[in-house]
């Protein structure tokens, strides 16, 4: 489900960057970044069991939700804030991005593309809420609150003054260059705020 995402993010982050990983899970990826890119990083994770595994890896970790994790930090504390795989689960994604831009200069976000052709076919032909590789849980168990597409995210960025400096798209097992809104299951974007535009409060 996350083919290519972590490798891409790893390439986008320069050595010795300061990184805040929101929803860091068991800390495996953050540990990998610390080892391969010598980043100074810390994680935020809600689940106590996963936090304990981060501690076991020797990571600096904060047990709390994403908003709480961001709130701890002063302005500009990080070069990169990572929001990998959790974006469509956020109650107020715009608010979180605004706060993430306070704490970090750049944000890397990944999300599932709800306009992938398999999703479209399931809705159209079967008339059912889709279950795919990138949307694996049925409607009553999914943690996803927002079902967005690559095109949706693009217009969201335009409306909020966010620049997508880099983008990458993936299907289950390959990178997608053409027609991402139809063919990509997951998308990764490197976001910056340009021209002093601020995300308006919702």
């Amino acid at each position: 489900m996350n083919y290519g995402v972590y490798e891409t993010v790893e390439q986008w982050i320069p050595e010795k960057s300061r990184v805040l990983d929101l929803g860091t899970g068991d800390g495996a990826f953050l540990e990998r970044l610390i080892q391969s890119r010598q980043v100074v990083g810390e994680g935020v994770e809600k689940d106590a069991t996963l936090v304990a595994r981060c501690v076991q890896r020797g990571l600096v970790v904060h047990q709390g939700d994403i908003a709480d994790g961001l709130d701890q930090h002063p302005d500009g504390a990080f070069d990169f804030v990572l929001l990998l795989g959790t974006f469509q689960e956020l109650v107020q994604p715009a608010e979180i991005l605004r706060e993430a831009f306070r704490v970090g200069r750049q944000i890397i976000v990944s999300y599932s593309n709800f306009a992938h052709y398999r999703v479209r076919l399931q809705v159209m032909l079967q008339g059912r809420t889709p279950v795919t590789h990138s949307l694996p849980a049925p409607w009553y168990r999914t943690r996803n609150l927002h079902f967005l597409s690559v095109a949706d995210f693009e217009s969201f960025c335009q409306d909020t003054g966010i620049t997508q400096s880099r983008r990458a798209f993936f299907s289950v097992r390959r990178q997608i260059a053409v027609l991402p809104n139809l063919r990509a299951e997951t998308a990764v974007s490197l976001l910056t705020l340009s021209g002093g535009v601020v995300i308006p409060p919702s």
Partner: protein
Amino acid sequence: MATEHPSTQLGDLQDQTVAGYRSALGVTHTTTVTLPGIRTQSGFQFEAVDVNFQTLGKLSPARDNAILVCHGLSGNAHLAGTDPQTGRPGWWDFHVGPGKAIDTDKFFVIASNTLGGCTGTTGPGSINPRTGKRFGMDFPRITVRDMVQVQAALLNYLGIEKLFAVIGASMGGMQALAWAVDFPERTRICVPIATCTAHNAMQIAFNEIGRQAIITDALWNGGDYSEPHFPAHGLAVARMVGHVTYLSELAMARKFGRRRQQDASDPHQFSIESYLHHQGDSFVKRFDPNSYLYLTRAIDEFDLFEKAAPEEVLREVQARFLIISFSSDWLYPPPQSRDLVRQLKRAGVAVTYLNLDSEYGHDSFLIDNPPFADVVHHFLNGEYTAAPKRPASSRFVPEI
């Protein structure tokens, strides 16, 4: 009053018998040394102070593995191992020992009775050298920072320049915080557990109830008493109030519910009443009422940021932090810890924070609590392994 309560999960190992429990450390001892005096924050000069302490494990040749454990209000220097006099395990035996949260096979662990205490360290029950009588209420007002000064004098005596870690819960957590701020160059790791930077009104209120119970006991006599006539009843009530605040509604409901005490002379006595009576009775055998007054006053007065704003006070901190709170602790509620986390992070200090899910209230750090033990164990061992590779200071300067 009541017989010993068959409690296995509540309270302090000093005040209960856990069936079949044996310390892995065997019998351990405490020692008392006389150290050069300190000048208290209030301006009183002690000519000398006695300090009762215990060490466990071996100091490494590089002297880099020393951990100071600071006890809470009712603790003492007997941290772990079996007390030769009472036959009971130390108050933190669950978490200090070979392979435990604080691993005595790896670390040199130091615990001392606090200044103002009543188990060997100078306190209101000690003899005032100027009068030849007990200090009583002539004992000077002391603070958490004074307690830390005395601990620093003990480290000087032991020849330990820098602590690998200072760890404490509750009042001990305040001491750990004072260490990181007052002795930044001597503190590598700071682990404040279930504590805060300053008591709120509710925390002061409960302590004041305890103090009033003691000073309104006729036998208190202005602090001038001697056994067997001493304000045992007042102290017992103070301890009972304290115990309620250390538990949680859920833990009390589970443990006692509305059950009656079977062996009580009064058939109407609830189990919870019996438990509190037992805690009170047990406490008065080992604690001095005047110490209780001085120590609760010290923690009520404590304010880590009494001299300046947090960002200024925390600017010199060099330690890396592990901060732990417990979800059901209503005496030191998690938001107090979270405020501290934010103040530290905003000052650029590396902090790992956990709010552990536990139903046992404030006492969650005292009881057998594997998730808590695992986190402390992994954090200390990980930091100890990584220490030589890390830069001297953990802080980074945020880009402007």
